[in-house]
């Protein structure tokens, strides 16, 4: 059987205590929520933390609450399945519901949490392998070596980010609350990701995502998420596009197109997004935006066996499709 390495599970009763535990054990501790990702990495001995700080023992971190003024507040330990099945979420933030429903398979959605999915480690075929497998090669950059097997000329790790929720959340303007022994701060979710495959989050090790917030959607707005994968279940995305568009007086007043799995962080396609603003979203404009998104996307690695050049092409196709979809819903 695939067995876990030994560790000690710490049981905090509050976020503050959890942060303290993480602070105390710095490089030897990892937080665990649903466990469906971190335990895989531990079984493969990709990481072998001495302590697991169990966030599920902290009360009141599992909630979804919507308010027309405040928008959606999400507790980090809310199960992904809740997002996938919540009627309010589907109505107000369709991209979130779609992204949640596209995570892994049923079991992963029941086990995995929003916070865990947001903080999903970057992935790479040379990294996410068993300890035996990795013996055939010198350690890569993500393992503190100096070789990148994907981009051999690269001095930084290019492992890709492939959480399904973040692109949609970012497109919808999500903010997260980070708690640490020093206190709390609120940042846009987009700022959580560093863009470096190795140290992929900007938060400190002893900081925890303690809440995720979405503003209420403007009156004439719509969002959607489309995921490229080889199988319709289980697979991580090989590319993904989340869009959120606001219309006023028949023209686009706000737009965000966020690309998934083309880099070590979700990527805002800013040229493509701004191209839409101030325009009527005609087929021609959509096509142009898709072309811009295509140019902005710079996938490096052949993620999951899917060549970068192909994933880049699909950025164009899916940007077009997602925009067409939201426009058809809005008009």
């Amino acid at each position, binding site marked *: *059987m*695939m*067995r*876990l*390495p*030994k*560790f*000690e*599970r710490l049981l905090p009763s509050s976020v503050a205590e959890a942060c303290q535990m993480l602070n105390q054990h710095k490089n030897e501790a990892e937080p665990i929520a649903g*466990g*469906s990702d971190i*335990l*895989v990495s531990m*079984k*493969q001995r990709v990481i072998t933390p001495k302590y697991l700080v*169990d966030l*599920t023992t902290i009360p009141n971190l599992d909630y979804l609450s919507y308010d027309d003024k405040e928008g959606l507040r999400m507790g980090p330990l809310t199960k992904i*399945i809740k997002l996938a099945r919540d009627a309010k979420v589907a109505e107000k933030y369709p991209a979130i519901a779609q992204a949640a429903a596209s995570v*892994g*398979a*049923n*079991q*992963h959605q*029941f*086990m995995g949490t929003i916070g865990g999915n947001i903080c999903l480690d970057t992935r790479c075929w040379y990294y996410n392998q068993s300890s035996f497998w990795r013996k055939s090669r010198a350690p890569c950059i993500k393992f503190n070596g100096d070789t990148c097997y994907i981009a051999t000329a690269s001095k930084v790790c290019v492992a890709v980010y492939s959480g399904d929720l973040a692109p949609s959340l970012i497109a919808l303007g999500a903010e997260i609350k980070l708690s640490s022994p020093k206190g709390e701060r609120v940042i846009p979710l987009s700022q959580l990701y560093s863009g470096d495959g190795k140290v992929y989050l900007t938060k400190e090790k002893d900081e925890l995502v303690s809440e995720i917030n979405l503003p209420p959607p403007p009156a004439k707005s719509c969002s959607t998420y489309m995921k490229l994968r080889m199988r*319709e*279940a*289980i697979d991580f995305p090989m590319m993904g596009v989340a869009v959120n568009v606001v219309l006023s007086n028949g023209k686009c007043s706000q737009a965000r197109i966020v690309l998934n799995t083309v880099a070590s962080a979700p990527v805002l396609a800013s040229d493509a997004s701004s191209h839409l603003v101030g325009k009527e979203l005609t087929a021609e404009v959509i096509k142009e935006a898709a072309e811009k998104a295509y140019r902005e996307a710079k996938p490096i690695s052949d993620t999951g066996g899917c060549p970068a050049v192909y994933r880049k092409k699909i950025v164009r196709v899916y940007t077009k499709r997602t925009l067409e979809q939201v426009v058809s819903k809005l008009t």
Partner: protein
Amino acid sequence: MKKLIELNVNSEIYEVAIDPHRSLLEVLRETIGLTGSKEGCGLGACGACTVLIDGDPALACLTLADRCVGHEILTIEGLAKPDALHPIQKAAVKFGAIQCGYCTPGWIMSSYSLLARNPKPTRDDIVRGIAGNLCRCTGYVKIIEAIDEAAKEMSASG
């Protein structure tokens, strides 16, 4: 250090001494002796180890046993009565939805949880409900038929 815990599995209480790094699958199979839940990949990608925890499907290979204290675990062994199969099991046999049988406990547990929430599933609901359970023998068609039949039988008998 081993820790003494109580696990509620199939409505029976098992007192077991385990290390904190044991997966629920290890404890079910090796400590308690319930080998119906299978390991097909050990990494959460095949669904053969699916059990229910408080009614929700969970991959036992990625569940820490220690975390299950105070929760109700239902495994394939807890479904049938001594003298009667559960309707899903009955339909699985009748419709040829079982061949080698190795993925069977996993998808039966997934569909059990599906039908508990959604007694009248569409074909699409069923397909999605077992999408995390790989099967190499059947091509899924007969599995889907069996779940559909079981759903009908269960709602007919209330």
